[in-house]
């Protein structure tokens, strides 16, 4: 047992760190540090930089451009991305539909889609949730009726992140209306430019536009875009939801936030003294650091255990703990940053349209409240914390 990184792992970390430091455009880094939204171009530009280095789809098999890194290297890579801070490769392609196509797609699908995912030539989004099927995905109603060489899709998806940027959407659709719940669902790839696809933006409480509804009205999809077998989509979806284990706790994100909080708390003056020198503030921060360090080790324990689990399709149920604790800590950093900013958090300014607000404050002050609002989603999406607790109770505790 040695909980430190090996010299090889440290060398690897340093290599990743140096590369990111040199290659990450300053404008992107600044936006991330200040909590501003990235543009579509920012995300694409950065992923292509990674792709040129051969690191955009590090988690994939070498055959399709992957790196062959083990779980610990994957972890180190993602933590360095988070701490930079840099955007990670677009998850919907790299961590979701990509692995599904690799595992279950046809050769033609692989050749057609995978290189374009790696280079972010195609922007993918996820069509799982529906208004009446959130945590209870199996209740989905969107249908795909076979009609010759095509499927005709009707229905509605919601909470679709970045649908406004997307070229493609991977959907769960009901292909056998008679079958119950999980059965009769298929996994279909749909071109967003198809006739009958309409995207409606959903404004979130931070004032941003990340999520959307997608409406499908007699959308015709070539049958070739079915992944795997008809009516087996539920299995692929489960595979997908379990496939991203590398840093579900997002420890690097929280580390970066804590570093940022310290930097700002050293700048903010309270009655002539930096907030960072205040005993009570320091204890609050130290308390968060303790929790984060514990989470980091817990995450590393799960990563290390991955080696013994390799090949198993189901996620380690311990991932649920990482999801819960990770979300709580990220949310706590957002709350603490809001406290650091204080009354200066009140003015609202969005994107470039910040009106008179900039006369009042600075951008980093104005993003504190929106980030706090926005990050409430972390304990909701991808299976709410309540759902995660149900999973732990059942799978680990046997209750």
């Amino acid at each position: 047992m040695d909980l430190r990184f090996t010299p090889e792992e440290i060398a690897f970390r340093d290599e990743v760190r140096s590369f990111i430091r040199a290659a990450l455009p300053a404008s992107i880094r600044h936006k991330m540090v200040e909590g501003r939204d990235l543009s579509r171009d920012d995300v694409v530009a950065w992923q292509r930089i990674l792709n040129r280095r051969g690191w955009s789809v590090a988690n994939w098999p070498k055959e399709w451009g992957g790196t062959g890194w083990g779980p610990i290297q994957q972890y180190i890579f993602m933590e360095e991305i988070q701490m930079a801070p840099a955007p990670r490769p677009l998850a919907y392609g790299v961590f979701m539909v990509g692995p599904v196509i690799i595992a279950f797609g046809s050769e033609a699908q692989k050749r057609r889609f995978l290189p374009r995912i790696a280079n972010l030539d195609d922007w993918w989004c996820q069509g799982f949730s529906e208004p009446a099927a959130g945590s209870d995905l199996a209740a989905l109603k969107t249908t795909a009726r076979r009609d010759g060489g095509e499927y005709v899709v009707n229905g509605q998806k919601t909470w679709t992140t970045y649908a406004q940027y997307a070229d493609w959407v991977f959907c769960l659709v009901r292909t056998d209306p008679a079958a119950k719940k999980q059965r009769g669902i298929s996994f279909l790839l749909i071109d967003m430019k198809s006739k009958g696809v309409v995207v409606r933006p959903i404004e979130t409480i931070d004032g941003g536009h990340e999520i959307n509804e997608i409406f499908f009205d007699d959308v015709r999809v070539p049958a070739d875009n079915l992944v795997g077998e008809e009516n087996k989509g539920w299995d692929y979806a489960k595979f997908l939801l379990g496939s991203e284990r590398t840093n579900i706790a997002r420890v690097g994100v929280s580390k970066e936030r804590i570093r940022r909080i310290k930097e700002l708390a050293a700048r903010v003056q309270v009655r002539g003294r930096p907030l960072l020198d205040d005993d009570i503030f320091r204890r609050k921060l130290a308390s968060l650091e303790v929790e984060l360090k514990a989470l980091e080790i817990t995450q590393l324990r799960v990563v290390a255990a991955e080696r013994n689990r390799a090949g198993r399709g189901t996620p380690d149920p311990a991932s649920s703990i990482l999801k819960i604790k990770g979300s709580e800590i990220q949310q706590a950093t957002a709350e603490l940053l809001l406290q650091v900013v204080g009354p200066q958090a009140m003015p609202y300014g969005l994107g470039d349209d910040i009106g008179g607000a900039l006369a009042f404050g600075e951008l980093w002050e104005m993003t504190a409240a929106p980030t706090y609002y926005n990050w409430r989603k972390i304990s909701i999406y991808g299976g709410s914390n309540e759902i995660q607790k149900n999973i732990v109770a059942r799978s680990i505790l046997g209750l």
Partner: protein
Amino acid sequence: MDFDLTEDQRMIQDSVERLMADRYTFELRQKYRREAEGWSRAVWRKYAELGLLALPFDQQDGGLSGTPVETMIVMESFGRALALEPFFGTIILAGGILRHGAGAAQREAIIPRIVAGEMTLALAHHEREARYARDHVAVTAKRSGDGWILQGRKDLVLQGDSVDRLIVSARTAGATQDADGVGLFLVDARAQGVSRHGYPTQDGLRAATVTLDSVHASTADVVGHPAQGLSILARVFDEATAAICAEAVGAMAALHALTVDYLKQREQFGVKIGSFQALQHRAVDMFMSLEQARSMALFATMMVSSSNAAERGRAMSAAKVQIGRSGRYIGEQAIQLHGGIGMTMEYKAGHYFKRLTMLDILLGDSEHHLGELAAGGGLFQDE
């Protein structure tokens, strides 16, 4: 000891609740928010008609001599409705300064116009460097002839871009955080040298940065003694704290009710999600937090009339601590229990959450007030 409203108070409560039910649906509020000033002149006139704008002022000034209980009733209703109008700035803050500091001529000139709904005001006191320190005043007022010249910048002036008149705190003597040497000046919002940059705030209301460049104020524009403004402000901030505690309780109560309704209607896995015990208990925890907050809003309402400034300040800090904590807990949990829909601007829950977050910050967040309370020796001192 008696928690019952009087007959008159119940009538006020009924009428304001009815008004807000009619005129402040979620859809109407969205409309008002998009109006040029960010609030509704039409609704403001309704407030005037109902006498709400007259409530705390003395009868001899044209008011109704209402007690803090009436203020609490109105603010709680406004909290439920997420009202956008400058009631807090005009009636509670500026109005409070007029009540506690203004001379007869000033009161006579201004209060009837406020009561009639013809004039709105804002308090221009906060400065960027002040954070939560209430005695931080760097804007200067220098004597010039028999008047004053104001110079400097004020921030977060609530609805400062749409009001008619400002009350500006400015230093007539001493250093930035001295207890003495601050005066309060009535300034026309459109006066020479006043420039205002309005912007929305995170909760959908509006505020402004006000720059004062050699703005002239006459002796008649000084409210109270030109060196004793902070003691008036201290009193007014205590009243304002009690008022926003009530507003926050209104918002929390409405948000809690909305959440419980959602639990009763939303289905998952074929059953109402309100049948899940973990969510039931969460709703109970929120309810307890709400009731604790309500109790502290009542406590603040009771104590705000105390003539013992230290005791009053401790009570307001204690109330603000509870309100901030309850608001945060109820806000966050309401979003969590709603799931995705709670994260959207199309649904009311998120607006409550945002407002509650800002109400914690306004007049000092719960951490700040806990520090004040602890430094002052705690709450239970004389029992």
